[in-house]
């Protein structure tokens, strides 16, 4: 690696082929999330997937309460910003009235596994033909980093300041595993956004989930582990490593319930 810097303030001359743009055109502007936050990456691959599946003018998102709530302003798809925890129920009402539209939720672990645990389980068992996206960072990021139902043992949060202790604070809940065990469910997977590879694998999971919905196969859930350096009290650069060590051990990545393979394309 030479010490010389390559100029990066304008497109190259002679012209190269642009293979990745700053952000998908469905992202309307800047977000104000923390440095190193994983949620904007999840948003990007979600919106890219909608574009790739040609769902842009055929989709409705239902967004819960968490830092990702501010995406409502910058995601160029129709959105119902719903009450904390209630996205799966709102999505149910929407999907039943608009069965031809791709309906998805965007929720955090606080939203889905704390406040709205019963909504997602009931919706899944009902076999509701919607896709839920869980952004799991193991904390209530938006309120400043308190313990959620997915905080792993030992993790320090504002309300488990000495680290989550099983006797005092109980055990974390792997909601995707619960959902995967239910009848009525078409597809469940857990991805992450800590590395380029995991981002791409996660994007494929999102695609598979939407494909299941479009095929009318029933409920789908993609859990995405996202970095929250602020809530974890770690530096932004350490986010992916902390995530791999602390969270991926408890929440292993991969498909938890696969849909019958019927795609020829990948």
């Amino acid at each position: 690696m030479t010490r010389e810097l390559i100029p990066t303030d304008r497109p190259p001359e002679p012209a190269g082929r642009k293979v990745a743009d700053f952000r998908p055109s469905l992202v309307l502007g800047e977000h104000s999330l923390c440095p190193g936050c994983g949620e904007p990456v999840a948003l990007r691959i979600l919106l890219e997937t909608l574009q790739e599946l040609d769902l842009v003018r055929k989709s409705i998102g239902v967004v819960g309460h968490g830092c990702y709530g501010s995406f409502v302003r910058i995601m160029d798809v129709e959105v119902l910003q719903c009450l904390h925890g209630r996205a799966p129920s709102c999505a149910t009402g929407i999907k039943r009235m608009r069965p031809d539209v791709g309906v998805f939720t965007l929720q955090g672990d606080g939203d889905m596994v704390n406040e709205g645990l019963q909504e997602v389980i009931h919706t899944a068992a009902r076999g509701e033909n919607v896709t839920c996206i869980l952004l799991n960072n193991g904390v209530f990021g938006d309120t400043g980093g308190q313990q959620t139902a997915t905080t792993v043992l030992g993790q320090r949060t504002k309300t488990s300041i000495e680290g989550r202790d099983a006797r005092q604070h109980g055990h974390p809940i792997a909601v995707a595993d619960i959902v995967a065990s239910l009848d009525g469910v078409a597809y469940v997977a857990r991805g992450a956004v800590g590395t380029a590879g995991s981002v791409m694998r996660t994007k494929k999971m999102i695609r598979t989930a939407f494909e299941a919905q479009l095929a009318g196969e029933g409920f789908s859930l993609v859990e995405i582990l996202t970095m929250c350096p602020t809530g974890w009290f770690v530096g932004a650069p350490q986010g992916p490593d902390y995530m791999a060590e602390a969270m991926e051990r408890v929440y292993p990545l991969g498909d938890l319930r696969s849909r019958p393979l019927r795609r020829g394309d990948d």
Partner: protein
Amino acid sequence: MTAETTGLRLMEGAAAIGESAILAGCRFFAGYPMSPFTALLEHMSKALPAAGGVCINAESEIEGVNMALGAGATGARAATGSCGQGIALMQEAIAEAALNETPMVVFNMARNQQDYFQATRGGGWGDYRTITLAPKDIPEAVEHTQLLFHLAELHRGPTILYGDPLLAQTRVGVHLRRIEFGELPPRDWALDGTTGGSGHSRQVWTWAMGKATDPGPGPDRHWRDVAAKFDRIAETEQRSESGYVEDADTVVVSFGSAAKFVEYVVEELRAEGHRIGWFRPITLWPFPGPALAAATRGARRVLVFELNAGQMLDDVRQYAHDRSAIRFIGGVSIHESGLAYGPLLDAPRIRERILAAAAEGGR
């Protein structure tokens, strides 16, 4: 003359209300059993799918009301319901729908009249109001049902039917027909999924932030706008009814089924020569304050009869012509099961209380 010629069908109140909702275009219903609301849920679970709609056995009230909110946000005529504790659980979402302006109808088939504050003051969060109609009998409930869907869409927000066990469970002959209430604004706010990628994709949000490329008013202005809307509704949607108030020296104020009993008793007393009249708010919110003030202008006594510890009383005190003329003659009265009215809802008892209070010196 037979039923065919009279056009009457003998129906349980809950079924009549359900059929009326379907006539009004209700296509989504989600509810959770709770007596006496259960009868409406059971009816809808059969009748709505048959009419091409969707009825979901919601797994809880919170899920039910949020499903209805989602359905309502697509522009569908949607409803839910419950009573008492179940409505309590729905308060957060009812407020949300009021503040993000999603139409839906909430059938509060209450167990008694103890939930007046719940219906009129909400208890959700923020500055919101819900148009609340309290029919006195089943034929009126059938009409109110359709009116509520209309008003919910006209003003974009949740509206409430405050019913009770008598309205839910009594059977009477009813006429069912679709009532027209006039033009409605276009449903251009409804989510249908088609505006993605436009830079102005639709959004339903109590904070009304809009999109980065098309900013909304934000909570400060939006909530002030909503408050102003409720002020307008308060002006235009008051409904009330009264009888014999012109020359009455005693006016009895009551609502819902109780008002039907009061009206019955007052008729009797009038026939016997007593100068008594009655006043009934039909909309509990907006409370028909000016009409009450007018109806009580000449009265020496304003008696409030409600089957609770005195809740509508708060509204009567704000508007009765002379506050010092008010006497409370209602009270808590509950069936031993806790699920229906107790013995105070009875014409002879009400008669006694009115006569006793009317006999007391005026101001």
